[in-house]
Each structure stands twice: as C-alpha cells, then as structure tokens.
C-alpha cells in the first residue's frame, strides 16, 4: 500500500510521493463517506419504497384507513384500526410487565447480587435478547399457550368474573393464543433491553451520593428509590423507549401466538392481530389490486410509529451522553 510507495518510485521524488499520498487519502475518505451516506440512503429508500408501494391504498382509502376496523379481502375494503390497536395494546401490556421487572433485575444486579454471580447472571439475562424471535414463537405456540389455556386463563376468568371492568378484560373462552399470550411473550423478549440499559445507568450514579444517603441512615431500598433512580431517570426512560420500539415492531413471536383475527375485542384473552403479524401472515397470499398496497401501508404506519418512539429514545439517551461528557 502506501508504505511501499517510497521504494517503487525509484529515484525519490518527494513532491510526487506526497501527491500520491494526497490522492489516496482523498479517495479513501470519499469511499468511507459514500458508505456512510449509503446508510442514510437506505433509510430514505425504505421510506420512499413504502410510500410508493402503499400509494394505491392511500389513494383509495385516504385518512379514514387509520380508523376503519373493517378488513375484508373479498370486497377489498381495508382499514388499519384493528392491527394498530393490537400493536399498541400488546406493546403497552408488555411494557407494563417488563419495565418493573427489568428495573428489578437491574437493582438485583447492581445492589444485591454477590460479585461472583454478577457476570454469569447478566450474561444469562442478555442471552434472552439473543434468542431469535421465531424461537419464542414456536415455544409460545406449543408450550406457553397450552399451559396458559389450561391453568392461568381459566383462573383469571373465574377470579375477575364478578369484578366490573376487569371481567370484560378477562372474558370468554380461554383460547390459549391471543392478545394476553402475545403480550407476555413480548415482555420476556424486551426484558433484557430494559435491564441492560437500566443497569448501565444505575452504575453511573456517583458512589458519593449513595454513601451520603447511607450515612443518613437510609435503607438500601430508600437509596435506590430516592437517590439512584431519580439520578438515572432519563436513562431508564430512554432504555424503556428503546425496548418499546422493539416491541412495536416484533413480528414472528407474535404471529405465532396472537391468532390473527382482524377485530377489536375488549377481552385480552381473545385473538387479535398486530401490524407486523398481519403483514407476515397475509402478504404472500394477498391477491388483488388493493390487498398488497394495504399491507404495505400498514408497514408504513408501523415504520412511522417506531420511528417516533426510537427517535425520542435516541434524543433522550444522547442528551444523557452529552451531559455525562461535560462532567
């Protein structure tokens, strides 16, 4: 490469060598810049391709697509309300479970766990993030869903049968598959994202603050709740948003266990669908001029929602990083 240039030039011409260096330098710089710009091009390409693919549906259904529940491939009338609702509900429920548990794991890892077990346990939790989503799907379908169907779901139906509001949330026959099962699987999948980010920000809390609180006689829980958690709030929220972004777009695990029904039921035990599950289930079988564009428009909506969530997570975490750099 450039190192051999000095020998190959024979009689040493300094100006020529330096010019060569300059040219090589410029070429390499442009090459790396092109690769970096390709990343932006891919992002814009995704956006453009989705809009182009969805255009027939956008033209045919307009904005009401967003709040129409009907999804009828035979009459070619499509609306996105049921999948949007399913996506938001499963993600919300998953967050409801995963955020407290994830924070609990982070507290365990930073405060309680003996040093010898810290690494193995955090690796084990992170392995949960490495397991591909299709594995969660097949496991959910064959193991978790039958288990829930025969045990927890009948119990929930019995217990809440006479409680107003809750009775309609847990109502109907226990199918096994459905919104509840999907949300539970989803919560396991995003758990490691929350606990990893939370643990990292917990560890940035200055020991002096914690020691001061202990010096005042605080218990370990009081130190976590009143000192460490407020200190690392922005990071915890950022991590949770990142996990939410994952949950919204999660496809295969949900496709297996949600039942793919385009309707909105009050009951969490009933089958439903999400944007990504609808696309994965129906895309290759979709016929007609509006079916495929409608599915692509669903994808566009999903991309838009996850973009908003992920972008705010990025901004939050980046501001945190910038603040950390100033100290």
């Amino acid at each position: 490469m450039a190192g051999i240039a000095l020998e190959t030039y024979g009689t040493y011409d300094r100006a020529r060598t330096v010019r060569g260096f300059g040219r090589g330098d410029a070429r390499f710089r442009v090459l790396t810049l092109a690769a970096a710009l390709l990343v932006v091009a891919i992002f814009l390409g995704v956006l453009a391709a989705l809009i182009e693919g969805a255009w027939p549906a956008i033209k045919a259904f307009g904005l009401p697509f967003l709040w129409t529940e009907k999804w009828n491939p035979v009459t070619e009338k499509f609306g996105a309300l049921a999948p949007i609702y399913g996506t938001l509900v499963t993600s919300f429920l998953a967050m409801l479970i995963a955020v407290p548990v994830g924070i609990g794991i982070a507290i365990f890892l930073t405060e309680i766990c003996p040093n010898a077990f810290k690494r193995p346990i955090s690796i084990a939790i992170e392995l949960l993030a490495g397991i591909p989503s299709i594995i969660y799907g097949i496991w959910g379908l064959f193991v978790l869903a039958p288990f829930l169907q025969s045990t927890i779901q009948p119990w929930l139906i019995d217990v809440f049968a006479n409680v107003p509001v809750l009775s309609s949330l847990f109502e109907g026959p226990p199918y096994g598959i459905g919104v509840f099962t999907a949300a539970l699987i989803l919560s396991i999948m995003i758990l490691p994202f929350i606990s990893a980010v939370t643990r990292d920000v917990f560890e940035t809390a200055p020991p002096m603050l914690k020691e001061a609180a202990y010096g005042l006689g605080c218990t370990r829980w009081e130190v976590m709740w009143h000192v460490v958690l407020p200190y690392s709030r922005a990071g915890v929220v950022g991590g949770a948003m990142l996990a939410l972004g994952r949950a919204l777009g999660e496809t295969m695990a949900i496709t297996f266990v949600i039942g793919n029904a385009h309707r909105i039921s009050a009951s969490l035990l009933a089958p439903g669908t999400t944007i990504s599950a609808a696309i994965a289930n129906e895309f290759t079988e979709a016929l007609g001029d509006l079916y495929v564009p409608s599915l692509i428009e669903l994808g566009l909506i999903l991309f838009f929602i996850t973009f908003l969530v992920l972008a705010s997570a990025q901004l939050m975490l980046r501001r945190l990083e910038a603040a950390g750099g100033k100290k």
Partner: protein
Amino acid sequence: MNSVLYARRRLTDRVFLLLSVGAAGFGLLWLGLILYTLIVQGFGGLSPKVFTEMTPPPGSDGGLLNAIAGSVIMSFLAVLVGTPVGVLAGTYLAEYGRHTRLAGAIRFFNDILLSAPSIVIGLFIYEIFVINMGHFSAIAGASSLAVIVIPVVVRTTENMLLLVPNSLREAGTALGAPMSFIIRSVTWRAARAGIVTGVLLAVARISGETAPLLFTALNNQFWSSDLGQPMASLPAVIFQFAMSPYDDWHRLAWAGALLITFTVLALSIAARLLESKRN
C-alpha cells in the same frame, strides 16, 4: 426512637429487595424453560437425516438440508456485502466525521435502522427487488439480511475505533503517514478484535431473522443453489412447519429451532470471549 417507623422502613426494604431478587429469578426462569423445551424437543427430532435429506412433504421422512444450506448461503452473502459497507461507514463516523453535523445525522439514522422492525426491511426489499425482478429470489433475501447487517457493523466499528487511543494516531502522523494509511494499518489493526465481534453479533442477529425472508427469498421445498430463484431458509421452514397440523413437520421444526438457537448462542458467546480477551 420511633421503632414502628423503623420496623416499617426495614420491612419495605426487605419486601422490595426480595421483589428484585424475584425479578431476576423471573428472567432466568424463562431462559431455563425455553432452553429446556428446546433441548428436549429438539434432540427428539434431531437425527443424521436432518443434515442429509431435503424438507419432506407432510407424512414422509426427510430433513432440513436445503433449508440449512439456504440459510448459510444467504447469511454468507449478506455478511459479504454488509461488512465492508458497515466497516467503511463506521470508519467515516469515527475517524473523519466524529463531531460534524453530518456524522451526527448519519449516526441518528443508523441507530433508527438498527432497531427498525425487520419486517419493514422485508417490505422495502420486496418493493425494489421482487417487484422489479418479477419473482422472489435468494438475492432479495440476502439483500434484506445485508440491510440488517450494515447498521450493526457500523455501530460496533465506530465504538471500537473510538476506543483506540489517539496517541497511536498521533504517532502515525508524526512519522508522516497519510491519514488513510494510519486508519488502515494502525487503527483498524488495533480495533480488529472489536470489529470481528461486531460481525459475529451481526451474523447471530440475522441467522434467526424470519420476517424479512418471508416475502423476499420466500421458501423452497427443494434443493436450489440458484440465487435468482426462491430459496429455503431455516427460519422460514420452521415457520411453515410449526404452523402446520402435521406431527412429523413439528418434529423437524423443533430440530431446526434447536440448531438456530445453538448457532446464535455459540456466536454470541464467541463474540463475548473475543471481547473479554481484548480487555
């Protein structure tokens, strides 16, 4: 001394700390349950035939050879394309861009792509490849995987290059070496283990990806090494077989699931070892 208050505070402390131990147990429990089922069910379906025979029609014997081969081919192509692009882009961000606005914007879009739903990537490739070619193909499948590889490699490359001490670069500059030369023979070399870790993580990520393959590479019941034609892949076959009502297909799906999980876990453990060796 207010002993009631003390007792209550101590109780709250105990309860919440116990709950967080419970939370860790909850996480580990799921990992244990999933791995347990995979091993029991997966080894039940595993036999030499899995590696030597093609995917069968329901009711007859067969294996997963074409699916395994398809997954390996498409992942290989994706890494082959994605790695150089990712490494170069990461190099720009860490070496040339660093504090510029442009680099900040690129970093932002890269992070979005990193966590973007993979099914949307599949739709993107469907629009630009499948529609223009008129049919599903292995090339389209590999491209969708490459789009997933790139952001992972960009992120890890940039992070690893940022860890290289500036004094190394300054030493190179002091010797009169041009910047491109310093990057290639000093910083890349110093960050090599980290960059390889990133590539391993990217392979782990795509080897289980299903959603983007469903409508790019589709699936193929037979052996095919033609990149212009639909190609089978392990995840797509697992999806098809698991959703079917046939018991022998279910057994193969479990065997495939075991193979994928162990590949992924082995890759992430290898990546981790490489990383800890560097530190």
